[in-house]
């Protein structure tokens, strides 16, 4: 028997509506149970778990290096952010120093991921509210970014390119030029999206004042990322607790105080522009050097060296068959994913497999604020609110 709302005595005329899990506007397989009084939502609860795959159990079964491939599949719109969060947690556990070039390339990749994820959000969010054409514009630029990912990772989405100790490989020749070409073009494209929506009277009336959440409530419910900043709380993990040399870049953290769907929309648009700035700086200041840490027992050796050096061959064999042994301990490492604070809680018992790896998925926490946003509002606003908190069910259900 799935989750449902009990009828309240004396309110028999109210309708209990099950929305989803197969609903085009629930961004995957989210199910909502709404109690309606006419068109007004009186109570709402959500039902999740339709995509539960037991990643956290699988983490305990595989070695640290193998686990990276699982992280791609959680937040499938931001696989590189997940890779980075996981790798940073393991690197913190190992107390491993990452070469500056690898850190900068990681920044370029995660910021591209942010743009890419925001593009999918913008396109689908606009479709939900009725603006069809924005979707096509957004997916045009998303395609460019996915091609950039394909160049480094060999795959468009499940890249697993960020590895423990650095990157899988040196980025190929011509890759940076490709990114630069995208950067030149992209700010003009953001203008196009804004031209379609920002001052559009229909868009404004559908989003302004809708889905309000106050700063206190947002913090209490554990909301993070653009949804939190839309309520006026200026907190971004990249600024507050910089990782992967984010302290070396100049960028703004867009914040607005309205706390409605429109504010969250403006913030994500502004974030795309800020990401372009960060990538620009990272390309201009890209250091020379290796992209892998000097830790032969942890980082896979180069293919070429395996053919000439017996040590490299032995290390390769050890890493593949056994893995490496981090010290006993526990760390929590969080990053700013496109959706908010993505945290990895990693516990090691000294064996080559994590004793426990828990993922603090930003959507999982953000979704808790949804009933607060929609209760007392019209049912037509529900889809606008779901879109505005940008949930990805893959990471909610894990």
């Amino acid at each position: 028997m799935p989750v449902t709302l009990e009828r309240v005595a004396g309110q028999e005329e109210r309708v209990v509506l099950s929305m989803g899990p197969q609903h085009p506007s629930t961004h995957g397989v989210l199910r909502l149970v709404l109690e309606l009084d006419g068109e007004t939502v009186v109570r709402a609860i959500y039902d999740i778990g339709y995509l539960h795959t037991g990643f956290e159990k699988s983490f305990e079964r595989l070695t640290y290096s193998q686990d990276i491939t699982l992280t791609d599949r959680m937040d499938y719109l931001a696989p590189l952010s997940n890779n980075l969060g996981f790798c940073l947690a393991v690197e913190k556990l190992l107390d491993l120093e990452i070469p500056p070039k690898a850190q900068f390339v990681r920044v370029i990749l995660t910021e591209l991921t942010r743009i890419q994820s925001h593009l999918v959000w913008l396109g689908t969010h606009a479709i939900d509210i009725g603006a069809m054409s924005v979707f096509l514009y957004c997916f045009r630029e998303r395609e460019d970014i996915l091609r950039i990912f394909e160049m480094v990772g060999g795959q468009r989405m499940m890249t697993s390119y960020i590895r423990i100790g650095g990157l899988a490989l040196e980025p190929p020749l011509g890759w940076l030029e490709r990114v630069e070409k995208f950067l030149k073009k992209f700010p003009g494209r953001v203008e196009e999206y804004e031209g379609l929506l920002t001052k559009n009277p229909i868009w404004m009336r559908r989003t302004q004042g809708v889905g309000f959440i106050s700063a206190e409530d947002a913090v209490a419910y554990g909301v993070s990322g653009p949804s939190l900043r839309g309520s006026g709380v200026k907190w971004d993990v990249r600024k507050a607790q910089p990782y992967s040399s984010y302290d070396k870049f100049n960028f703004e953290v867009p914040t607005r105080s309205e706390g409605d769907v429109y504010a969250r929309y403006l913030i994500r648009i502004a974030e795309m522009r800020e990401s372009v700035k960060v990538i620009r700086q990272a390309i201009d200041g890209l250091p020379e050097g290796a992209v892998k840490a000097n830790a032969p027992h942890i980082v896979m050796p180069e293919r070429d060296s395996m053919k000439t050096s017996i040590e490299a061959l032995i290390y390769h064999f050890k890493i593949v068959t056994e893995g490496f042994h981090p010290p006993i301990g526990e760390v929590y490492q969080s990053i700013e994913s496109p959706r908010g604070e993505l945290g990895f809680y990693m516990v090691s018992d000294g064996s080559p497999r994590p004793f426990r790896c828990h993922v603090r998925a930003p959507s999982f926490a953000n979704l808790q604020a949804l009933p607060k946003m929609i209760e007392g509002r019209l049912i037509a606003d529900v889809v606008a609110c779901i879109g505005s908190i940008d949930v990805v069910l893959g990471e909610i259900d894990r």
Partner: protein
Amino acid sequence: MSTEADISPVVEKLREFAPDALEEAQTFRGELTLWIKLESLRRVAEFMRDEKGLSFKFLSDLTALDHYPNEPRFETVYHLYSIDQNQRLRLKVRLPGDDPRVNSMVPVWPAANAYEREVFDLFGIHFEGHPFMVRILLPEDWEGYPLRKDYPTEGYR
């Protein structure tokens, strides 16, 4: 012997507020972990949230660990963050393997709601005073608690 954790201002403040609530304090990789006595958890949590100069208002994460076959078997883990102080803190509570129960943190941090349901779902730890203690990820008729160490990865066949 005084360790790095002992001289942390958070520990000092907590000692002043509730001298016997703290079981153990540890620092690893710059992260402070405090083990809190089961019965003092609620008091300590409210203190951490409301005390000026701490204000851990943001519950980042809540999860559990299973130390099977060791006793006390379970630990619940609370990751707190203070936006004002830009500081993180980890609280832990040890629970017995037989009928593990702990106070719900929903009255302190509403964010705990879904996390506690998840821990209940996957570890079988009961949160007393939780408003809606039902499974969240697995079907309601699921048997067993998959993240326990004695639950096989392939499931029961």
